[in-house]
């Protein structure tokens, strides 16, 4: 019956279901906010910077080649920092109650291309702990690299610092709420479409034309909207209008068949 997708019809239905869509969107934003603020534990991040630079044997021989060597080493170092060799040591030193694997997941090692600086980021539910782990990892790495690579080219550039009022990196309530808004809007729209499809009643004059091929002689508004005096405020406009009509009919009562002209 509804063979073609009617865009105009679609938007008309969406407009009709706008309260539902808005309600769904607001509900999901609220849900995302509640989850972000009340349920999810805040996660803090501490970062430390490590400089990879081999001190040249004598200052004059500091060459491009040395820098290249260091750069090539960085990718190796990135792997080494997150290796069990380092992390086991960190866990032992701090007496952490977790596995290498779980700690590995909380550590992020990155370096900007062609830069000799490696950034080490650690996430933890406590800022203090995050700072501690970051600094310990950097320190252990600095020591261990001498044994592993037999080089002494790593130095801590900037240790992680405890700030006065740390800002959690996770959760990001605004981001979550934005995602919630999108999901809510899409679900609302989807629900509106489903409800529309489920409604198999005759609703528009077009329905009569399409389904029955019959002429619509006219429409009649709900009689309930007339005459009731204890109507809810929803019908206020209409009520006022009726009262106007009433007073008109009183004024014109002397004239017979007021409304019969057409």
């Amino acid at each position, binding site marked *: 019956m509804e063979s073609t997708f009617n865009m105009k019809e679609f938007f008309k239905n969406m407009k009709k279901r706008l309260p539902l869509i808005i309600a769904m969107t607001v509900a999901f934003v609220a849900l995302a906010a509640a989850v972000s603020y009340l349920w999810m534990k805040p996660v803090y991040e501490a970062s430390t910077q490590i400089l990879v630079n081999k001190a040249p044997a004598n200052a004059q021989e500091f060459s491009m080649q040395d820098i290249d060597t260091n750069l090539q080493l960085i990718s190796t170092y990135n792997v080494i920092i997150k290796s069990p060799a380092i992390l086991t040591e960190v866990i032992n030193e701090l007496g952490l109650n977790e596995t290498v694997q779980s700690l590995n997941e909380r550590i992020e090692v990155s370096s900007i291309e062609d830069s000799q600086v490696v950034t080490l980021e650690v996430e933890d539910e406590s800022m203090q702990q995050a700072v501690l782990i970051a600094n310990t990892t950097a320190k252990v790495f600095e020591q261990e690299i001498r044994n592993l690579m037999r080089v002494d080219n790593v130095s801590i550039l900037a240790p992680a610092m405890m700030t006065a009022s740390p800002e959690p990196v996770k959760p990001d309530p605004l981001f979550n709420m934005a995602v919630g808004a999108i999901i809510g809007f899409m679900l609302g729209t989807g629900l509106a479409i489903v409800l529309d499809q489920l409604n198999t009643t*005759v609703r528009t004059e077009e329905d009569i034309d399409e389904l029955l091929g*019959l*002429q*619509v002689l006219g429409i*009649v*508004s709900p*009689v309930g909207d007339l005459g009731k005096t204890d109507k809810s405020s929803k019908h206020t406009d209409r009520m006022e209008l009726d009262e106007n009509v009433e007073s008109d009919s009183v004024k014109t009562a002397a004239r017979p068949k007021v409304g019969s002209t057409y």
Partner: protein
Amino acid sequence: MLNQTASKRPLARKLVARIKPNSVISEQYRTIRTTINFSLPGNEMKTLLFTSASKEEGKSTTSANMAIVFAESGKKVLLVDADMRKPTLHHTFHLNNHMGLSNLLIGKGELEQSVRDSGIQGLELLTSGQIPHNPAELLDSPMLDRLIEKMKERYDLIIFDSPPILSVSDSKIMANKCDGTVLVVNTGKTEKQSAIKARDSLTTSKAYIVGVVMNNYKLSKDHYYSYEYNY
């Protein structure tokens, strides 16, 4: 009892066309009247049947209000309650239902003595009468044809209110005998499939379907006001 006037009790609220002649709804009924007048083939429609697919779609309300606006336009109108299963006309106009259509169909009484005054100029009423056991058979008898002929002599327009077409065969019989049939649809309640079935039954009965009245049609606000300014 015969030819009695409608009692002095206030008319039922659903008779909008009478109670609030200037209301939007009354105007909507007049618009329907106009459309029916224009869609008449050769202006010879004297009997008009109002039916619907299922119950409670607004047949009685629509037929009563249509009878009122047709009477308003100067026609001599008879409104007949042909629903001998769940009659309502006598309730609407606060009449008793001792005598009416069913009595006339079994040969008891004369049309002239059975019709009632509605209290509205140009509109007379015929209630259903006592509820018979076999409404369909009564309607299918030649008695009805003779009665309709008699009505046509006395009135310009005879409006029949009838039972739902999908539940009983009464309306199919009536639709066949009437010049035109109006299908009342309860907007947002009538199933599309029911509407199609109702149309098909009427077509099978060789009824002339004048068109559809969409009852309980909630106008959107902007639509509502534009409608206001239309007349």
